[in-house]
């Protein structure tokens, strides 16, 4: 068990702990390993920063529902937009991953995601998540 309400596991889990949440946004931290048997990385790839934001969005969504007495509902990443990458974390860095719910429309939820490293913005994106079981939007 990862401790987060998502099925991801190391080495493809990019959340180490939940730092803070106020119900509408959440801050997660990820400690990028200095050495890994699975990845040989000199830098954290841009696409994995998007994945980290998506995992944070899903974990926040599941945690929020549990806090509201919700059931086992999960979310499926439906789309990303306005992805901006301005930094590359290196092994040993701690990433701060921030997600904030911006709008909900039917089963679809829009969240703003950001990845920060040492107080510098490394990536941002809009994440569209569909609530409920996998399937096409309706």
């Amino acid at each position, binding site marked *: 068990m990862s401790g987060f309400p998502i099925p991801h596991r190391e080495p493809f889990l990019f959340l180490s702990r939940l730092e803070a949440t106020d119900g509408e946004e959440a801050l997660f931290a990820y400690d990028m390993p200095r050495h890994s048997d699975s990845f040989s990385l000199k830098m954290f790839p841009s696409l994995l920063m998007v994945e980290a934001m998506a995992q944070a969005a899903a974990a926040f969504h599941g945690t929020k529902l549990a806090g509201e007495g919700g059931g086992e509902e999960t979310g499926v990443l439906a789309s990303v937009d306005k992805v901006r990458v301005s930094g590359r974390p290196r092994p040993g860095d701690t990433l701060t991953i921030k997600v904030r719910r911006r709008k909900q*429309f039917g089963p679809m939820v829009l969240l703003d995601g950001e990845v920060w490293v040492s107080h510098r913005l490394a990536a941002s994106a809009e994440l569209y998540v569909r609530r409920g079981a996998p399937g096409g*939007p309706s």
Partner: protein
Amino acid sequence: MSAVTAEQVRDLVMETLNLHEEYEPEEIELEGSLFGDDGLGLDSLDALQLAVAVEEKWGVTIDESIGETVFRSLKTITDHINANR
């Protein structure tokens, strides 16, 4: 402040949802259905993206509670924007 036209709304819809490859602008009728099998077949992801785009461009909010009514056609979107600017 001049009124938003249906043509401006149509341009935003086509740009936001990348419809240019599937439709010519004139194919999207003013009062034609946007959602469902008898219309353009837009879905809930499209609705959320459109709601965000309208809010960013004209500062008019479209909440989930009125989405079904507002997103019926280009005309209903245009009317909602002009009534709430």
